[in-house]
């Protein structure tokens, strides 16, 4: 009972600074004066917006998976270091966050451009003759977004891995499990919770993100958040609200499905032992 009470400050914060304010905007946008589904039908029937929606999903999924594949081994590496050395290795992962996302995105323009560092180096080395188009492509979006999101995944994986009792791994080894088997049977399942959470956080953040695609993506790399802020600039709150609701609903649905599936997986694994 008393534990439930600790939810109160969180609920109060989210109610006053998110639910009520966003509710006001949604209500202003969607009740005209009675509720209208006009904005939702506009979203569903215009090919352009559906395409932007799928693009947003796809970019977010690719970025989240790329972060998982790169970040998980990094977290694993850090957690296997002596405890005293870990903070420094973690620090190196986190320190680039001091640079604003906007400035980082412009820095990629200098790197990936036609006359940028990479093309110039490749030409100087004689590997290519004509510059490769890297800037303003979907690939550039992935590079830029992974650079921003990767620390989140590493940190989330890491903090769940530190909870894993190293003696379990040792025990598995003593019982004759090969290192690979010990990793697969003991470490991987125990670190899955953190890995899935990290991947989900990256996915969620990517769904609401737009600076990188807007600045270094191609003409088809538009994200939902980009359209939403454009609609707000035009004082078109109704359509902005409808798009935000679609984005929110889709993301939360995926979140619930993945968490449900992962809970079953983890639970299943626990029962098997």
């Amino acid at each position, binding site marked *: 009972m008393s534990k439930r009470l600790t939810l109160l400050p969180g609920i109060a914060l989210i109610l006053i600074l998110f639910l009520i304010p966003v509710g006001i905007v949604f209500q202003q946008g969607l009740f005209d004066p009675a509720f209208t589904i006009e904005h939702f039908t506009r979203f569903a029937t215009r090919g352009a917006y559906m*395409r932007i929606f799928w693009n947003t999903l796809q970019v977010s999924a690719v970025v989240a998976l790329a972060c998982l594949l790169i970040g998980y081994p990094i977290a694993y590496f850090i957690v296997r270091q002596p405890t005293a050395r870990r903070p420094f290795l973690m620090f190196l992962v986190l320190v680039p966050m001091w640079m604003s996302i906007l400035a980082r995105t412009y820095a990629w323009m200098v790197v990936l*451009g036609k006359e940028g560092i990479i093309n110039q180096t490749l030409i100087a080395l004689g590997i290519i003759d004509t510059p490769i188009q890297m800037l303003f492509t979907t690939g550039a979006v992935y590079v830029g977004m992974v650079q921003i999101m990767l620390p989140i995944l590493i940190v989330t994986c890491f903090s769940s891995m530190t909870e894993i009792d190293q003696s379990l791994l040792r025990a598995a080894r003593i019982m004759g499990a090969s290192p690979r088997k010990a990793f697969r049977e003991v470490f991987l399942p125990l670190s899955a919770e953190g890995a899935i959470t990290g991947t989900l956080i990256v996915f969620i953040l990517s769904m609401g993100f737009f600076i990188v695609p*807007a600045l270094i993506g191609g*003409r088809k790399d538009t994200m939902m958040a980009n*359209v939403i802020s454009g609609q707000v600039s*035009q*004082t078109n*709150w109704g359509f902005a609200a409808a798009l935000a609701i679609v984005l929110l609903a889709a993301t939360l649905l995926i979140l619930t499905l993945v968490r449900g599936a992962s809970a079953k997986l983890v639970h299943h694994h626990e029962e098997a032992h």
Partner: protein
Amino acid sequence: MKLTKTLTAFTLGATMAASAAFAEGTLTYAGSGGGLAQVMKGVFDDPFTAETGIAVNALATSDRASALKAMQVAGKVTWDVTELNPIEYATASLSGWLAPLDWSVMDPNNALPDDAKLADAGIAATFSTVMAVRTDKLPEGKQMTSWADFWNVEGFPGGRALQNQPIDNLEFALIADGVAPADVYTVLATEEGQDRAFAKLDEIKPHIAVWWTAGAQPVQMLSDGEVAYTSAWNGRIAKLAAEGVPVTINWNGGGIKASYVAIVKGSENVEAGQKYISFMMTSPERAAQFASMVPYPGMVKGLYDHIPAEKGTMMPTHPNNVGDQFVTNALFWGKNLGPLKERWEDWILE
């Protein structure tokens, strides 16, 4: 360095001015913040406070049309005077969120041309979306002088960029297609005219490397050599050229835009607001001082008498340049942006 020094001097002066002024009330001005606000503080705000005793509280704001709408919803106005871009002005004006201005009080000596004095706003500054050209990327002995040249990808090979929005581009396309700048909006008002503009844009679309979304992008791309020809806001191109990058502005077919100042309806400081707008707009000396620091000149008569010619000719409203351009029609776009933007979004994703 000079600008930095001047800015520091201004800021120091400002601190002193602020402590010296005893409040005759405070005027809240919704501007853009940043370096621009620092320049405005030195040229307009502090002298205004010294003269009238009214303190100016300069805000950094964005999405001003939506912010004004939010104040309507909240039922309380928190700004007195606001800066507005053309679309924001059109939205605010058509929605009736702006207070009427009494120009007989604000400009008794007719220092401003009638074009600058609207019923509910003044034109405080101007800029232009122009064609910027990297001269070292041009074919031997050729000059790019018109939007028709920009569309001529065989005669002028090289990377191109345009802004990712219908405003300006539909006008440029029609001008490239032979419409006189003066007739652009008559043509664009018809469905056939819009089809014609999009058809012309179809021709150039495969050759546009980048559809830019932020004003700093074309500047960076010209500087990096990522593109050779692009639409861009005039202000920074002049500075880029001064930095030694081989780049020129082609004024022919540029779209002049206004930055409006207006009093928010419901403000309790209408009188002080009118005084401030008048102070900002009607002195050619002050306007020249502002324009020499930020290349977005005002409309006051005699402005260019106070600006050296080599600087003045880089500005959109200079007599040499103004005739080649068209004036972006804020009210046309205020009314038509919705459907045209939707069509644009479909078109860009095709």
